[in-house]
């Protein structure tokens, strides 16, 4: 009995392969995009976890100073109070070409490290002069040409971009004698200890992952997840439509089967089984798709993370069981959600009476109202969330509430607009068109909701990236004021080089900085000399009068926006770098593309506090037209390998390239989402197609040609899409505002001015119309070519 009934149910799909394809494709797309994002996030997290494990930090907590460093004496005090701690000294090691993160540890107390304790040959030599530095082979090239390197030991068991050494060696390389960046709290502490909060109130306890760039990268991954979820939601609209149709078209079959003795329970079970089977197949296809998409996007994600946070994600996508299970779970879960309504309808379906068409449209109207009420509720909830919940989660709650709420409001809005339009109709045909569009709304509104979400996301994210880019370019033009940037080999050469430049009357601005930890993450302190370059060009957001004069006098500091927002430090506040190093903030400047805090003080003030500040980088000021000649001359006069030069245009081009790479993933996901939405419209129109013939046939019989009907079909789709696009615009702008003013501040620490790009909107509208046309084309062509006999059949079947 089951087999016969199941066979009868499934036979539907063999007669409607396109419908099946749509269902499977919609589900596969939804699952695919979601899984792709999950795979990328999973890979990145695995990469961080691997790095953390390779540094022996899995599951460990840290002590970090509220500001400054921890002295070795403090460490010894805590040890002698009984606490088992392991010291870590971390800093940027300025190399010949750029810099690298150097981590110094005490191997005697550090959690087990595979790098320094390989099986068979323990690295005792690391502890004795001249020490050893440990690094991943791929990091080695960064050390190329650096003089006086300690012996290097290459190991695959360290993250790339990190150099590890004994703390004694790190101290002398970094010039940070007697200082510790953080303390690892080791497991198995002895009994009867005084709490750390009492012993060391100046230190903060953090989970290991939190102290690094963890918080920052988290925001990026949250971003990706939000995108994945959005794609998933858009994909589910397709599933919703097709499952609904699949059930709708089989109402008669269900009734017949029940009349022939198939119980409701069995029928429900069979339908569920059918759906789950389809969900599984589509889920598998989605996983394959997701795997491919993730593989294609991973290098860009890695580039983005590198560009934004200096974190690298290594390796390719690996298949993880948890990923496969969660992908299939999402497919099944999503199918269940998307088909819940159709199932409810099925379950309530009367065994005997054919449902009245009138009753259904009434149903649609009341459901529009319910959706609109829920939508308003969501918008209010989201708005409350941003007020009540701090941080990124609140921002995303606002986004989710506003986006979803607006989508739910859409059907009622469209319906109202169409009703208003109907009142303007003059001819019978146009009256019919308006009325028909409104009648079709319940069937197509889900697709329009998908389109609304996709368009709004596109507008929002596009506005965000474009605003960011515009701001970034403007900022760069201000900030990169020197005509030439030069880095010399070593400090011996510094004197020679600056003397040579002085002879030619060229202003040299030294670029000297020291990195110190501040509230758990490193900040850079630049020491600058008095020059109008700063007064005239620096991109200031807020400043006291004569702010630069006070900086150059040693009595003030300019800080970047990230630091200002994170620490809530504004002109007039005091920046406390350590207990005996406090400077009033005189101004705040914008500083994009850099996750960390930054401070500018006068060079003498810096040198007074930090003993060893490298002096190898310079900005050269000269008339722009002379730059090329000077560069040539420098290259002729000095060993070209010993001085690296880059001119302003070049550095700008490079920076922009990094910036653009950063948003590649966003762009790709954006486009994919729009594609899914287009597909959703196609599905809906195809779905409606079969149900539309009975409505079109009378119009045809009244003298409207098939060709005309086909055109009307396309126009209807275009009209609805344009309406939706118009409604998507304000939503997109709200989204952009939330991204720029809420999410960006939380994720990156800077707020961006919003610029609008109407040409982009037009382009997007064009895209939406193309999608709508393409989607309407299939049914329209079908309609134009339909045999009159098929239209006549409608009458034959009608009673």
């Amino acid at each position: 009995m089951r087999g016969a009934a199941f066979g009868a149910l499934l036979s539907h799909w063999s007669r409607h392969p396109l419908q099946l394809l749509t269902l499977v494709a919609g589900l596969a797309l939804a699952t695919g995009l979601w899984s792709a994002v999950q795979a990328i996030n999973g890979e990145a997290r695995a990469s961080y976890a691997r790095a953390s494990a390779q540094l022996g930090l899995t599951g460990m907590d840290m002590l970090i100073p509220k500001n400054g460093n921890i002295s070795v004496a403090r460490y010894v005090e805590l040890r002698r109070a009984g606490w088992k701690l392991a010291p870590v000294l971390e800093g940027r090691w300025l190399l010949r070409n750029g810099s690298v993160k150097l981590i110094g540890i005490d191997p005697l107390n550090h959690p087990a490290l595979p790098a320094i304790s390989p099986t068979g040959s323990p690295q005792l030599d690391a502890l004795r002069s001249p020490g050893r530095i440990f690094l991943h082979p791929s990091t080695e090239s960064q050390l190329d040409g650096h003089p006086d390197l300690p012996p290097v030991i290459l190991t695959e068991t360290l993250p790339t971009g990190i150099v590890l050494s004994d703390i004694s060696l790190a101290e002398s390389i970094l010039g940070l004698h007697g200082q510790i960046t953080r303390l690892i709290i080791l497991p198995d502490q002895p009994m009867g200890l005084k709490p750390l909060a009492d012993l060391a109130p100046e230190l903060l306890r953090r989970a290991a992952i939190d102290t690094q760039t963890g918080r920052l990268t988290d925001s990026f991954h949250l971003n990706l997840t939000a995108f994945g979820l959005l794609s998933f939601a858009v994909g589910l609209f397709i599933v919703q439509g097709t499952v609904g149709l699949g059930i709708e078209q089989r109402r008669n079959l269900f009734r017949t089967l029940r009349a022939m003795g198939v119980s409701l329970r069995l029928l429900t079970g069979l339908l569920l089984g059918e759906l789950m089977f389809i969900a599984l197949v589509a889920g598998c296809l989605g996983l394959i798709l997701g795997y491919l998409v993730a593989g294609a996007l991973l290098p860009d994600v890695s580039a983005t993370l590198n560009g934004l946070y200096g974190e690298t994600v290594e390796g390719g996508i690996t298949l993880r069981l948890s990923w496969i299970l969660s992908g299939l779970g999402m497919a099944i879960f999503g199918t269940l959600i998307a088909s819940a309504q159709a199932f409810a309808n099925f379950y309530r379906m009367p065994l005997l009476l054919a449902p009245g068409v009138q009753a259904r449209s009434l149903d649609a109207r009341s459901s529009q109202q319910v959706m609109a009420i829920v939508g308003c509720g969501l918008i209010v909830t989201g708005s409350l969330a941003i007020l009540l919940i701090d941080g990124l989660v609140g921002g995303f709650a606002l986004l989710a509430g506003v986006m979803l709420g607006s989508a739910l409001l859409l059907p009622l809005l469209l319906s109202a607009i169409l009703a208003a339009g109907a009142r303007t109709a003059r001819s019978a045909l146009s009256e019919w068109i308006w009325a028909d569009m409104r009648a079709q709304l319940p069937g197509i509104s889900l697709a329009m909701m998908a389109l609304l979400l996709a368009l709004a996301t596109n507008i929002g994210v596009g506005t965000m990236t474009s605003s960011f880019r515009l701001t970034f370019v403007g900022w760069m033009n201000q900030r990169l004021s020197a005509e030439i940037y030069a880095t010399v080999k070593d400090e011996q050469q510094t004197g020679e080089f600056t003397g040579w430049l002085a002879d030619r009357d060229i202003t040299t601005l030294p670029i000297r900085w020291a990195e110190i930890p501040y509230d758990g993450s490193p900040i850079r302190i630049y020491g600058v000399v008095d020059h109008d370059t700063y007064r005239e060009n620096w991109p200031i957001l807020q400043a006291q009068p004569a702010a630069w004069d006070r900086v150059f006098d040693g009595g003030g500091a300019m800080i970047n926006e990230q630091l200002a927002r994170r620490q809530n430090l504004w002109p007039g506040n005091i920046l406390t770098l350590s207990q005996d190093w406090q400077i009033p903030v005189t101004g705040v400047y914008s500083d994009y593309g850099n996750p960390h805090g930054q401070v500018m003080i006068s060079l003498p003030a810096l040198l007074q506090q930090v003993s060893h500040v490298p002096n190898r980088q310079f900005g050269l000021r000269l008339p722009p037209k002379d730059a090329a000649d000077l560069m040539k001359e420098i290259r002729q006069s000095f060993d070209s390998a010993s001085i690296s030069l880059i001119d302003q245009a070049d550095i700008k081009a490079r920076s922009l390239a990094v910036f653009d790479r950063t948003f590649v993933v966003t762009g790709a996901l954006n486009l994919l989402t729009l594609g899914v939405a287009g597909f959703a419209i196609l599905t809906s129109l195809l779905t409606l197609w079969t149900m539309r013939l009975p409505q079109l046939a009378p119009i045809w019989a009244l003298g409207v040609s098939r060709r005309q009907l086909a055109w009307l079909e396309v126009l209807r789709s275009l009209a609805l899409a344009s309406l939706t696009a118009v409604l998507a615009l304000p939503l997109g702008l709200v989204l952009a505002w939330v991204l720029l003013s809420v999410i960006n501040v939380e994720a990156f620490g800077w707020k961006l001015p919003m610029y609008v790009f109407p040409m982009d909107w037009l382009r997007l509208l064009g895209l939406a119309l193309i999608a709508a046309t393409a989607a309407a084309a299939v049914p329209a062509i079908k309609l134009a070519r339909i045999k009159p006999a098929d239209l006549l059949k409608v009458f034959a079947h009608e009673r």
Partner: protein
Amino acid sequence: MLLSIQNLSKCYPGLPPSRAVLRNISLDLEAGKSIALTGESGSGKSTLLHLIAALDHYDTGDIKIDGTSLTGLTDRTRAEIRRTKVALVFQQYNLVPSLTVGKNLLLHARLGGRVDLDWNTTLTHRLGLADLTDRYPEQLSGGQQQRVAIGRALAVRPKLLLADEPTGNLDETASAEVLKLMLELVRKSGTSLFLVTHSAQIAAQLDRQVHLSEGVLQ
């Protein structure tokens, strides 16, 4: 007695008993006999048919099919009765559009686990469908579709065949032909027939005729 209806009443929810659809109906049908139920539109004919087919629930009274009372049965048992004891022929045929004629013919029998291929072949030939088994319902005329529906119902060898205006959608010629075939096959298989029609002409061809008017049997 194959079908025995006693004091049956049915009321739609929200309506007072004075406006009941069916009032105090009693009726018997012997095995192998046929009965025609006539009445105006809205007289309650179809409701009575659905009650007998265990598709709907009655308020008071009792229906017994082949000695089994339908009162208080679970959905499962009711479904089993529909699978094995009664079969329905609808005015709109209700064939499964995605199955071929051949598969449609066998569907009910397979659901009931009562496939008899010889009997099926006999039916197929007798109904003149032998050349059409690979077609889909939409490729058939109305008369042909109704013949498939009749074949599908009889393939189960039901004790009771219920037919609701089986020729209502057909022109006169087709109608007469289909009815003739149906009666012949019902007789041949020993099935009892309960037929709802508004046509006195059709009703006259059955063993017995009863008339329903405003929910009361006359």
